[in-house]
């Protein structure tokens, strides 16, 4: 376990500067549930960077922070979780008011299904084959939120990223290493590699599944379990558009659909569901890969949504979860916009 981080958590709780910490702990049978810790003695089960992502940290955080916590809350999470938390605050699902987000150089996560087999696999940042497909192509593996635990480039220190982060370090009497140049080099090099992987993977996806027919194909094995939606930190609607009663169609309409091509696939809403979800996620997807990890049918849904969202966010010059101050593109309106889409 990381001693600098543990030291920080302990000091923060004991001093009362922070009144609660949200962090994964070790549960029974190789499970790593999120825990909201208020008592220092419960810190001994903490596992700040578990090998798997079983529940997305932003989802766990959103389950109790729609109103502002009374004292300071320190949430220890992976960069993609912190970015989702920032997106959720813009979507008014989390009140970040009293929350400090602490991230780390993320090693990546082992695919849930592979970890489950014996519970011994560890993610290794240098061995992509131990990581989930989206972790292999993740370019934002460090420096999200207010503070970041740096563990590469010869560093082992907590680096402040915002004034809130700096304040916390100051009040705990902790000081960050000042020379971060090697660490930055490390990050840039890895980012470069990952960008290549991402470009290759996107190319391959486009080749295999292009156009509507491609989508039909990739989702043909979808069993409509909706797990991708339920585990996604950004899919927060209590009742999804696809489940609304007005989506139901009568038997005659299904027959009509069948007659058009000789046969109709059931459940009939599958494609509409996925296209709708892609559209809804396309600005805020943080490429965490939860959806893909949870899919019992091994459908590369995370890579697909992430690819679509990459295109959209580029168009709006937006980056999900980077800056709490950046407004959500669809919530802003500019008289002069999207000229390239007019004629």
């Amino acid at each position, binding site marked *: 376990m990381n001693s600098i981080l543990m030291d920080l958590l302990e000091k923060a709780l004991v001093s009362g500067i922070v009144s*609660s910490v*949200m962090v994964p*702990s070790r*549960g029974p*049978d*190789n*499970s790593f*549930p999120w*825990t*909201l*810790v*208020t*008592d220092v003695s*419960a810190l001994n089960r903490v596992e700040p960077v578990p090998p798997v992502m*079983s*529940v997305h940290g932003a*989802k*766990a955080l959103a*389950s*109790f*922070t*729609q*109103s502002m*916590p*009374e004292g300071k809350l320190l949430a220890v999470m992976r960069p993609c979780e912190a970015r989702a938390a920032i997106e959720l605050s813009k979507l008014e699902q989390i009140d970040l008011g009293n929350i400090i987000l602490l991230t780390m150089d993320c090693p990546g996560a082992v695919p849930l*299904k592979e970890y*489950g087999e014996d519970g011994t696999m560890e993610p290794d940042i240098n061995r992509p084959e131990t990581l989930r497909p989206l972790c292999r192509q993740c370019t934002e593996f460090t420096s999200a939120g207010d503070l970041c635990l740096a563990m590469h480039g010869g560093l082992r220190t907590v680096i402040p990223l915002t004034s809130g982060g700096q304040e916390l370090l100051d009040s705990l009497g902790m000081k960050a290493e000042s020379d971060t140049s090697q660490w930055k080099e490390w990050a840039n090099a890895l980012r470069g590699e990952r960008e290549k992987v991402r470009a290759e993977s996107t190319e391959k996806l486009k080749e295999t599944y292009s156009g509507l027919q491609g989508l039909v*194909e990739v989702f*043909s*094995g979808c*069993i*409509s*379990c*909706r*797990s991708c939606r*339920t*585990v996604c930190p950004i899919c927060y609607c*209590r*009742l999804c558009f696809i*489940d*609304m*009663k007005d989506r*139901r169609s*009568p*038997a*005659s309409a*299904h*027959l009509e659909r*069948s007659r058009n091509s*000789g*046969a*109709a*696939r*059931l*459940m009939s*809403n599958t494609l509409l569901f996925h296209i709708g979800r892609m559209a809804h996620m396309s600005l805020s997807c943080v490429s965490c890969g939860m959806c893909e990890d*949870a899919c*019992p*049918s*091994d459908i590369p849904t995370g890579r697909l949504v992430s690819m679509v969202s990459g295109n959209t966010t580029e168009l709006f010059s937006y980056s999900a979860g980077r800056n709490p101050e950046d407004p959500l593109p669809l919530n802003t309106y500019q008289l002069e916009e999207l000229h390239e889409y007019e004629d």
Partner: protein
Amino acid sequence: MVENSVLISESSTRDTLIHLLARLLQNGEVDSVFALRGTSQEGRYCYSLITDPSLLNEILPFHPVMPVQGARALSELTITEPFDRPVAALLRPCEIRAFVENVKQSQGSLENIFIISCTCPGVIPASRLLREDREEVQRNLPANIRNACRTCTEFIPGTQADMTVLIASDEPQNSTVIYLHTEKAVEIAEILDSCTLETGKPPAELTSGILETRKKALKDLMREMKAPGDGLQSLVSLFSACIGCRGCREACPLCGCVLCDYETARTLHSPELVRAEAKRKGSLRVPAGTLQFQLGRLMHIAPLCTACGQCSDVCPVDIPVSDVFIRAANLVQESLNYSPGRDTDDTPPMATFAEKELLDITD
């Protein structure tokens, strides 16, 4: 009810069924066929509503996989109105039972559905067909079926089936055997080519060995049921790896609520309450409510569970959800004297109220 009238065909089950269904479509006896089909991707399957007879050669009748519980797909088709013209549906016994429960809860209609079922040998977990050598896992079916199928004693369809294909049987069959339960079924069988009609032994007599094996497996499952005292702790441990994907609920043919009770403002814990609990206990698992959801769903579904195993099949972290549900369902259904899916006329237990009921479990 026609007594043990059977159709014998020397062609394979698949060919016989395709021939039969094609005839039905061509003669206008049915407008459409509801059946399992492969998709363009290997190892992936889906239900389809087929109207063009030439596409029938794509169906995989009673292929040992259940991508979606058939009742759920049929419910999607008939929830707002029944079929106004006949449709032939290929369904496994647990799919029929689940659909009968759907009908009772106004989630579908059996009207105009001609049901072709089978003595069911069980299905293989979908993920295994996807990830493992498909031929290998299919070769020894009984060894590779779902846990739920292993313990299923109701593998012969009930009275709703018009036809039953003998698939599971103690002795391998040389020809295709289809039981004809209704006048309509006999009528249809009479127009088929190269088949003979006979009187055969009832399916129960040809499957008694399988029933014995299944009963034993069910008994073993029931014995594993922990005493109520340590039950809660064992459930905590069992669901510790649950990722909260709710796939079990979505896949269950009986979980039909538009908005699950455990997603409503009434049952979700308020942020204030969660934070207060964490303060009181020193540490709290978040999101709270994993076990509340499982136990709540168990309470809602135990009286109705038709033991299909779909919930386990979709669980991405391999929690044996259906084992828990099937054990509880057996106990609850026995004490309520209710057998879900047996008959559309049986009233669901929650809909009846007797002044003197459940005296044996109250004091």
